[in-house]
């Protein structure tokens, strides 16, 4: 048996340390991810009209959150003390960040079903990291629809915002999107790890992923203090866009946090990913096949 590159399979178990260390494991994982994702893209592109329609559908469906905000602003001039362009900045950055995470590993929420119907077993025997296989499984390019609508709103925000741009503030935008994307990736992986335990609880994961992105699309000023503490110190979604975003807008942070927290998102993102990785390994270790 040979693996996808034509080399003998089984190296993972034969040589877990030595030359086959953590770095090459990550490299192998990424390569496997790329190949599986490319396969799904090819299969999607076999039906181009269908791809165009579902991408547009994804674009329209995910735009609804902003449509709700627009409907609100048809009645009021500000919400929680924030004007529409300011909310658009919070919305756009978090929507693009979440959209990128959803595009790359949004399929993770199918893990519970795989555990239930036993198809996870097939992935376990392949000489490719399970995380890469689960993440790339059914890679859905149509999710570019969400990224696109987020970029539109972000573009609108940047065009209409009344902000004195400094180099730091300009740099903050890509930084928010990248770190926010990683934080959401960690939430996806952590949620999937939880599904090893609770197999048909994928909706709980939705509460944190889709619920999380809906939450941070609104300004923090409208939420209760306890909720703000929760999304700052427990599940650090506040670092996706609120804290760096409020720095860009020149507004006071919630909970009287110090100024430097606006620059913490990359560190928070790395910490979240590390924790999610630990949770994933723990989850995978508890896995018992259903045998079906």
């Amino acid at each position, binding site marked *: 048996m040979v693996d996808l590159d034509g080399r003998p399979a089984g190296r993972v178990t034969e040589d877990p340390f030595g030359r086959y260390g953590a770095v090459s494991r990550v490299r192998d994982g990424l390569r496997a991810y790329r190949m599986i994702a490319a396969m799904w893209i090819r299969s999607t592109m076999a039906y181009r009209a*269908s791809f165009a*329609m*579902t991408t547009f*559908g994804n674009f*329209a*469906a995910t735009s*609804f959150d902003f*449509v*709700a905000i627009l*409907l*609100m602003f*048809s*009645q*009021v*001039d*500000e*919400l*929680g003390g924030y004007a529409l362009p300011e909310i658009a900045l919070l919305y756009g950055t978090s929507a693009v960040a979440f959209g990128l995470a959803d595009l790359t590993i949004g399929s993770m929420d199918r893990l519970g079903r795989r555990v239930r119907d036993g198809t996870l077993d097939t992935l376990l025997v392949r000489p490719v990291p399970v995380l890469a296989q689960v993440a790339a499984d059914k890679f859905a390019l149509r999710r570019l629809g969400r990224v696109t609508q987020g970029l539109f709103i972000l573009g609108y925000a940047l065009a209409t915002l009344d902000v004195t741009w400094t180099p730091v503030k300009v740099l903050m935008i890509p930084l928010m999107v990248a770190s926010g994307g990683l934080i959401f990736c960690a939430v996806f992986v952590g949620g999937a790890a939880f599904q090893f335990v*609770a*197999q*048909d*609880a*994928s*909706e*709980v994961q*939705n*509460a944190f992923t889709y*619920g999380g992105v*809906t*939450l941070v699309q*609104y300004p923090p*000023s*409208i*939420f*209760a203090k306890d*909720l703000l503490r929760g999304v700052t110190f427990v599940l650090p979604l506040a670092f996706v866009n609120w804290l760096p975003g409020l720095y860009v807008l020149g507004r006071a942070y919630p909970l009287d946090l110090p100024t430097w927290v606006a620059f913490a998102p990359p560190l928070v993102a790395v910490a979240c990913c590390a924790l999610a990785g630990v949770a994933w390994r723990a989850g995978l270790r508890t896995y018992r096949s259903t045998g079906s």
Partner: protein
Amino acid sequence: MGTGRLYAAVAAGGFRRYATYRVATAAGVFTNTVFGFILAYTYIALWHEKPHLGGYDQAQALTYVWVGQAMFAVMVLGSAGFEEELIERIRTGDIAVDLYRPADLQLWWLAADMGRALFQLLGRGVVPMACGALFFDLALPDGPLPWLACLVAVALGALVSFAIRYIVALWAFWLLDGAGAMQITWLTGVFFSGMLLPLNVFPGALGDLARLLPWSALLQAPADVLLGEADPIGTFAFQLGWAVVLLAVGRLIQSAATRKVVVQGG
């Protein structure tokens, strides 16, 4: 078995089928509650900015949020219900078997869907509503009468919801792939049911139009009956009217579709 008992058994089957997934139901309750909290805070901000927006006071607006979360699964406003399965049966040709059964296709699926709706009302409606009442100041009626009227409106809304989705599913006889039609229905349903925002907050003519369309029977109507904002009898007549029209349209499409079926043999 009498026909009434047959459809009662199908409805019971629909109820039991969803009752089996207890963890999934609990997970759904959790998600509806989380979204209820997020929405409730945005509504508080909105009604703080403009009190009595759309004729609701803040307590009524918050009640609307939680009625919405309770109706989410009952009216199938978020995901797919029976229509996904029906479309699959049409696509694979299994529908031919269904047509030879001594039961009416539309009534069969209606019974199953009503069983499902009843389970979702108990399983995914009651707890988020109670949770909302616990944490927020809601405008809930004192006497049993508005609650009963609301239940009638929910039942009629579920009927309209079924009738819409049945029509959509039958398009699969011509389109073979129902994904696009389902997605469009889902989008219109979320928008025009009042799931995004109460329809009375929609600006001008858009709001008037939305209130006339059948989707307002799914969420806006039961909510307004509970809140005492709508005359129950008039609301029931509106919902029943749409239910009768849409069920009749479904029946017409069904007879056109079944004439089209060619059984390919075994």
